């Protein structure tokens, strides 16, 4: 039970909303960094501490995840979006038990990609807000491709690792009513938020008021690394699925 509470505090949204978002001192960038760090801690911990799933905490995490979906739909800032995705997926972390660590790891890697994009936006466009910098596909296709990969990964599109770990878990678990509700609604939440952001950020007519900048060599390295990591995780997740199938 204590382990459950620890995990909940690390990955659930409520603490962040209560303590961090209310304060003006903490920027959204910082909140993401902190959330990501704590999620990393939780992932590491989950390899050592057995995570039993507590229905009460999962239900609370689920409610706050739904609230996060609502918030994510409202925001147009990549930093905020990145940490909202952590909270949206918190119930999975609790629910997936041992599979949760790998799922969260691939989620975290995708979110680091999004974070790198947010950094890039902040540097070149003055803010990590994507609404103003629309039409990326036409203006800077490389950035557009990376955003697409990260978002479709988060949106649980195969063959990216999030969807494969998710599938592995679905194969491997006995379902009950709560399970169905959470799996379906959070799957849809991830998908809808990702697709909405994809539509608003990369498509459309370019903004003539903006001087678009594409990634330079130095900026390409982290993205390339993230794509490689996602690729490796995909291979591992495929192996997991085959193990289960065979």
């Amino acid at each position, binding site marked *: 039970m204590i382990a459950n509470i620890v995990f909940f505090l690390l990955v659930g949204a409520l603490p962040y909303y209560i303590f961090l978002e209310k304060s003006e001192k903490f920027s*959204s960038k910082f909140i993401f960094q902190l959330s990501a760090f704590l999620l990393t801690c939780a992932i590491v911990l989950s390899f050592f501490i057995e995570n039993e799933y507590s229905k009460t905490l999962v239900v609370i995490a689920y409610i706050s995840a739904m609230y996060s979906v609502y918030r994510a739909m*409202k*925001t*147009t*800032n990549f930093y*905020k979006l990145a940490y909202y995705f952590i909270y949206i997926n918190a119930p999975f972390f609790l629910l997936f038990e041992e599979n949760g660590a790998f799922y969260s790891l691939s989620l975290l890697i995708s979110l680091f990609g999004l974070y790198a994009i947010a950094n890039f*936006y902040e540097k070149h*466009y*003055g*803010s*990590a*807000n*994507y*609404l*103003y*910098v*629309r039409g990326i596909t*036409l203006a800077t296709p490389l950035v557009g491709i990376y955003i697409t990969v990260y978002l479709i990964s988060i949106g649980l599109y195969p063959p990216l690792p999030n969807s494969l770990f998710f599938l592995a878990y679905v194969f491997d678990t006995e379902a009950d009513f709560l399970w169905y509700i959470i799996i379906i609604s959070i799957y849809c939440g991830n998908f809808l938020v990702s697709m909405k952001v994809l539509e608003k950020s990369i498509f459309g*007519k370019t*903004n*003539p*008021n*903006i*001087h678009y900048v594409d990634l330079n060599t130095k900026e390409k390295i982290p993205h390339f690394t993230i794509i490689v990591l996602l690729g490796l995780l995909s291979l591992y997740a495929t192996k997991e699925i085959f193990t289960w199938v065979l």
Partner: protein
Amino acid sequence: MGIVAKLDAIKGNVPHYWPIGSFIHHNPLKGFEYLNFKEGLSRAKKIYGGKVYMEPSYYLKFYHEEKISHAILEENLKEVLEVDGLAQYYDLAMKCLLEVNPQWNEFRKQADNKEHPIDKELLDYLDDEFSYHNKERWLKQLTKHMTLYEMNDILFYRDDKEIIEKSIIEYISRYLDEEQTTIAMQNRELGMFETFKLYENFEYPYDSERFVEEALDKLHVKNKERYLLTHLLKLHGWAGFIKYRSEDPTYYAQQQYPSSLMDYMAIRLYYELAYLQHREINNFDLLHEYSLKNSSYVVLKVLKHNYNLPGKYIDLMEESDNYDDILERYVQEELQLDAKQVHLANDILKNRDIPLVELAKIMEVLREEEGYIWMKSLEDTYIHSFINEMDLSDKPQTQRALASVTMCLDVRSEIMRRSIEKSGNYTTFGAGGFLGFPIAFVEFDKTNEQLLCPAVVKPGNIVFEIPKEIDSDYKSKKTVTKTTKKVITDLKNNPFTPYIMVEAIGWFFGINLFGKTFAPQKTEKFFAKFKAKKPQTTYTLDKLSDQEIMMYINKLHIHLIHEAMVKESSNQYTEEEIEAIRDYLVFGKELSFDVSENFLTVLKDEYQITPDDYELQKAKLAKVGFTLEEKVEYLYKFLTMIGQVDNFAEFVLLSGHVSRSDNNPFESALDCGACGGKSSLPNNRAMCMIANSKEVREEIAKKGIVIPDDVKFIPTLHITTTDEVEFYDTDILTQEEMQRFSVVMEDFKKASANARKERISQLPYTKTENDIMVKSMDWSETRPEWGLAGVMGVFAGPRKSVKHMAFGNRLFLHSYDADLDNENADILTRIFNGPLVVGEWINLEHYFATVDNVAYGAGSKVYHNVVSKVGVFNGNFSDLKIGLPTQSVLLEGEAYHEPVRLLTYMEAPLETVGKAVENSIAKEFILNEWIRPIIIDKKAKKVYSYESGDFKVIKEF
């Protein structure tokens, strides 16, 4: 002013949209042609918001490549500055054009704006200029073309616009459907709004006009005219199509299912009211009240919606609700950036004398004018180089040519004409593809007539294509194809069968799919074997006698009564009784036997056997063919129009043209524009048949044109995609003539190959002649040919003046001999009324699709889906796409087409041109400078250009 008058007043702003099946190039800003070009563009920009000239950097590139002459640019700049009262700033203005303006937007984009102490006076001026602190005025500018539901969406996170527009499109695309859907909408004959009432179960006893009036009152609309325009512009493609249908009483679908802009407006307003009724703000008074109370918030939201609010302010809006403060911060930053632009410009100009506010004003005027200055300079440079290169010597052609060929004036004939001329003893002529010979043509085995003439002309004669050999083979093959197609379509469209169909015969379609993708040529050849081959045909060119007309109508009615008897009646009637029924229905004669009332009603209502229909059929059949006088007149007019009145070649070829491509809804845009977006072969074939007729030759000789007996008129067809030439009706040639003609055919083959070689360099991803061939059958090819892209002008004059010049398929070439024209300039007037009108439409359609494809074009073909068989839209619902797709005018995002007005060169005396302009329907756009008329007057030894309402001498020789 009543609501009808208000709608009439603004509908000119909506461009006509012709159905895509007979794509008619048109000027999207036709409604503005009553204004001078510059003024029209400026007005359109305010309404549509799109760009109307290319960016300065585009022209600057040409300037550096010397495609724009410095001297000409200088002259044009001086002229504009003089008009604007800024002549003393010439040096500064030139520097602005060349150095500052191309970087203007870049100045703003540079993030650091601290490097300059900003001039206070300048800040005040800019603040006032952009209304930053007059929120009401600012908001009015920002929301000029917004509906109330859009404002609700913006202010309250709604998505009504998407649902409303989708509902409207769903309804109108089904209502206007021309047999694309399998289950058609019911009751459409009631009219667009009446059917809509049934569709929505909306009980409303009055018509659309009254509904629109009431709806606008409910919304508390102050400026009704503007609001109607706002609504029309939301889906201006659909509105344009409805406008076109409703204004063409001969449009068949409109006759069956009437529609009007008023109905369309009523439907739009119905949805607006329906969605707004539960919203907090459901009329403009409430919106006004809300905007006054929350002005900063409203401005910020609208700026955000228009993508004008930088990300950091959007973030601030998410975090705080102190909107006054956020807006003020935004305004201050904007002002700083505006001022910084002027400061940076001032640095580059090294200006010390002119105060910054004054400089800002000058630069603003220049930014308004620069597009026009650059474009006109480009046009003038082309004009000067053209007139300098022309050969104006008088060298009459003495040697008789083996063959002469008259091709369409279409730009795509230019390379081909040069190649033909080079390949042997040949002369070429150019004329509008319909040859000044408008016909309604009913193709063999088709029931609908095609109007083969410019959209502004209505043909008075009908021509039928009929077989001249036994067509049983064709018929049997056609029946098999038709049945197979019908079975497959039924299986596809039945709600239960598609699944089984895919399993059972899905693989069959794989042959086509893989074949067309990997081996288009072989697949085309393979499937051609299964196609029914059209038998040899001829045309009905002679008038029917009254007896023949009566006989045909009688036959038709008897046939219909027979058909109705089988389907609708339990009684059988003898042939005599059938004739009596027909006489009763058509002529009101007494019936001597009993026929059920029901059966008679069916014959009247469904089979249209009525006195009215009898008269209609009679009038139609009376239009079939031509009288001898008409034939002679058309041939005479054609020959004099192109100046071919003597020294006829042995073979006079008249060439129509057509484009061939696969999976291309825009194919008809590549066909003959002078034939309403169709093949011009029928006009050319018919004209050849007329010209070969002995009695016509005898009659025309009396008018002074003697066509020797050994001259044979042969129709040909130029395939513009591949530059191949097909020959028709060669069976009229004797064996000896055929031997000589085979030389012509061989030379034309070589000319085709040479034309293709020249075009290889123009077409992207094309290295060999075979690549060009493949493009015509590759279903993934979005650009089978460049079509009319690149068009920049038209030349009306003798071929010898420009024969030595290569235009790379960029000039319309119309043969014209001013010496043959009469005092009234009838020939030139005819050229103006047909080819010039079409040329202007084509040119300006390309112009606007290039300068702003989003506002005036159709976007990328890749996302298009055919809708209602009338046009294309994006994805599964969007506005009907008007104009040309990006693939027709752009290459890899850059303009391929060079947007200039149609440079209209006329080799004729000034007086003749003046008379033709005066008599022509093109007068308005000529005098308002939507084209650039250049008159080469050999007698006066002067070249004139029509500019600013006057003929200006630009060269003397």
